[in-house]
Each structure stands twice: as C-alpha cells, then as structure tokens.
C-alpha cells in the first residue's frame, strides 16, 4: 500500500517537473526566435508571404464573425435597454464592449483556431518529414528561415484583424439597431462618440491585441517545432495549440484588463 502512494506522488511530481521543463523550453525558444528575427526583417518578402497566409486568408472568418457578434450585441442590448427607455445607449454598449473586449479577444480566439493551428501543423509536418533537419544540413537556420517569419506575420496581422473585427461589429450593431429596429441614427453615433475615448478605449484595445498576437503565434510556432515527428504527434500539437492559446488569451485578457481598466480613475 505505501508503495502505491509513493508511486502516485511520484507521478504528480513527474508531471509538474515536466510542465515546468516545457515552459522553460518555450521561453528559451521564444528568446531564440526574437534573436534570430533579424533575417526576416532583412528579407521581408518571407514575412509578406506569411502575412498572406495567416492574415489575408483569415479575413473572411474574422469579418463575418465580427458582423454577427455586432448584430447580436445590438439586438440583445436593445432588448434590455428599451426597458429603461435608453435605447439610444445601444451604440455605446456595442462600441465599448467590442473595442475593449470582444474585438481583441474574439478575433484572437478565431485567429488561434484558424491560423495558429495551421502554423503548428505546417511546422510539425516539416519536422516530421525531416525538412527542418535538411535545412540544418544546408547551414540554413530553420528558426530564422521558417519560424521567425511566421511569428512576425502573426504579430503584425493580429491588431489589424482585431480592428477590422471591431469595425464590422460596430457596423453590425448599427445595421440591427438603426436600420432594422429604428433607433435614432444621430443619438446612436453621438452617444457612442461621447463614451468611447481614443486613448483609453481604442489604444488599450490595440495594445491588448498586440499581446494576444505575440502569445498565440509564439505558442503555435513552439508547439509545431516541439511536436513529436509522427502523424499522431502533429495532431496532438495542433490540438494543444488551440487549447493553450485559448487559455492564454483569456488569462492574459484578465491580467491586461485589470491593469488598464481599474474601475476607478
């Protein structure tokens, strides 16, 4: 009996040490990517190619989701606000919740599942088919040539995608509240413009999405580079990318929000 207890304690310890070891690996990998990203700025065409794959091809899902999120916000906000006779505040509600929270967070979650998983699968498969080792043999650094351009492409694309998501969302809210339901157009825009502050709300939202972009792409490239070189390993790494990114986004969001919006000025 004591032996079984000891082995189960050992199993817990093993897992914790394993987790911390992986975290250390990821941190070292991240620093390595930053150190070797000089090449991707000198040969910027590499980054442009990746921006096309992670940014331009994610546009459809980001824009459509943004539109629908905004429309739902407009509808739900109107339902509640009309009880208090302040349905013109629906513009404020839609704009503030999109610019501060939903824009950066939702687009980062979509980005992680659309582009992050693709990055992981691509790099993982390159590793499984020994393309990365072949590069190493030819004295081409795979981190500088493969990983860094993808990382920077994600970091550049994320704030742009988040801004487009917010704009589409505001447009969706406008469509539902003003065009379909018939809230006064002037008070919709003016209440929004009174409540949304450029520095406090919009810039903070952009800063948030920059952090999310770094987190999502760093996780994606690390999981791909770290994936066991088998079919099963690559599929597991892809799943881990989506799950870890989602957790990282939501956790980071809470931390950033508590720094940015303390509730009291």
């Amino acid at each position, binding site marked *: 009996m004591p032996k079984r207890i000891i082995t189960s304690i050992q199993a817990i310890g093993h897992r914790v040490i394993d987790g911390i070891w992986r975290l250390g690996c990821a941190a070292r990998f991240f620093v390595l990517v930053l150190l070797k990203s000089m090449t991707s700025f000198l040969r910027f065409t590499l980054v442009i190619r990746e*921006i*096309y794959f992670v940014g331009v091809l994610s546009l459809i899902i980001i824009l459509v989701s943004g539109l629908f999120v905004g429309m739902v916000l407009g509808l739900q906000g109107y339902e509640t606000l009309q009880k208090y006779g302040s349905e013109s505040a629906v513009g404020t509600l839609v*704009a503030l919740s999109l610019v501060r929270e939903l824009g950066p967070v939702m687009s980062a979650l979509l980005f992680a599942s659309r582009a992050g998983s693709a990055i992981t699968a691509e790099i993982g498969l390159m590793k499984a088919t020994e393309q990365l080792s072949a590069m190493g043999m030819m004295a081409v650094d795979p981190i500088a040539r493969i990983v860094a351009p993808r990382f920077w492409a994600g970091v*550049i*694309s994320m704030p*742009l995608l988040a801004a487009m998501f917010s704009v589409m969302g505001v447009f969706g809210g406008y469509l539902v509240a003003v065009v379909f339901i018939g809230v006064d157009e002037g008070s919709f825009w003016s209440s929004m*413009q009174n409540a*949304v502050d450029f520095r406090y709300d919009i810039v903070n939202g952009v800063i948030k999405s920059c952090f999310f972009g770094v987190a999502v792409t760093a996780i994606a490239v690390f999981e791909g580079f770290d994936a066991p070189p088998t079919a099963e390993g690559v599929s597991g790494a892809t799943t881990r990318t989506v799950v870890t990114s989602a957790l990282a986004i939501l956790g980071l969001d809470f931390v950033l929000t508590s720094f940015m919006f303390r509730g009291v000025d």
Partner: protein
Amino acid sequence: MQRTIMDFWVGLFVMTGMGALLILGLKVGNLTTYNTGESYTLIGNFENIGGLKIRAPVKSAGVVVGRVTDIQFSLETYDAVVTVGINAYYRFPKDTFASILTSGLLGEQYIGLSPGGDEEMLAEGDKIMKTNSAMVLEEMVGRFLFDKAAED
C-alpha cells in the same frame, strides 16, 4: 501563387487594417473633438464632488469646453481640489461660477461653468472662486424628511 498577386493582397490587407483603425478613431471614438494640445488649467475647490470622475466633461451652456484632468483631496481646507483643462479657444471671466451637475436623472456628472460679468479673464493656473457642490441624493432626502418633521 505569383509574388505580385500576393503582395497586392497583403498590401490591401494592411491598408484595410489601418483604415479600420482610422474609422475606430474618427467615427467610433471622439478623436476629432479630442484636443490634447492647446489648453489651460483652472483649479476649483468643491465641498463635495459626488461621483465626478477624471475625464468628465466641463460644459458651458451645454457645450463641452474642457475636461477634468485631476481630482485631489486637500488636507488644508478638507475639500476636493478639482483641476480642469479648458480648451485655449474658450476664455471665461474671473467671476465664473462652477457647479457640479448631473446629465439626466441617472447620467454622468460634469462641471458646468456659468460665466459672470467680470472684465478680467481667467488665466492658466487660476482658481475658480465661486463653486457649487454636487447634489447628493441622500442629503436631499434627509433634508426633505427633516423639513417635513419640523412642519408637524
């Protein structure tokens, strides 16, 4: 895919993203009315500021002329010291009256300026001498009940 086509799409993507940020700034936010540059500060002591917050608007005749930039508690006079930044375009006489008002029944609080008739104008760092505190609902209800009791 051909290089030039990809470049075109990425260029379009980046431009759309920047455009989205611009729309957020101009149409959703209040960047157009947001004036950080030309402004002068005034100070006012208030007995009670109620729920006034930093960045609350300062209005005169309903027009936004500035914003609250700082709120401190004074240990000398034991009241609130409110610093406001007024757009340099707007000048007010020395005997301007500042009061803390509420927009609507449950709306946000702001500072209302009613200009007096003095020839001299308020300048950078000046103190607004005439101030009127925020109306606190509990105090008003209390006073009302007290008056009612006194009548009987």
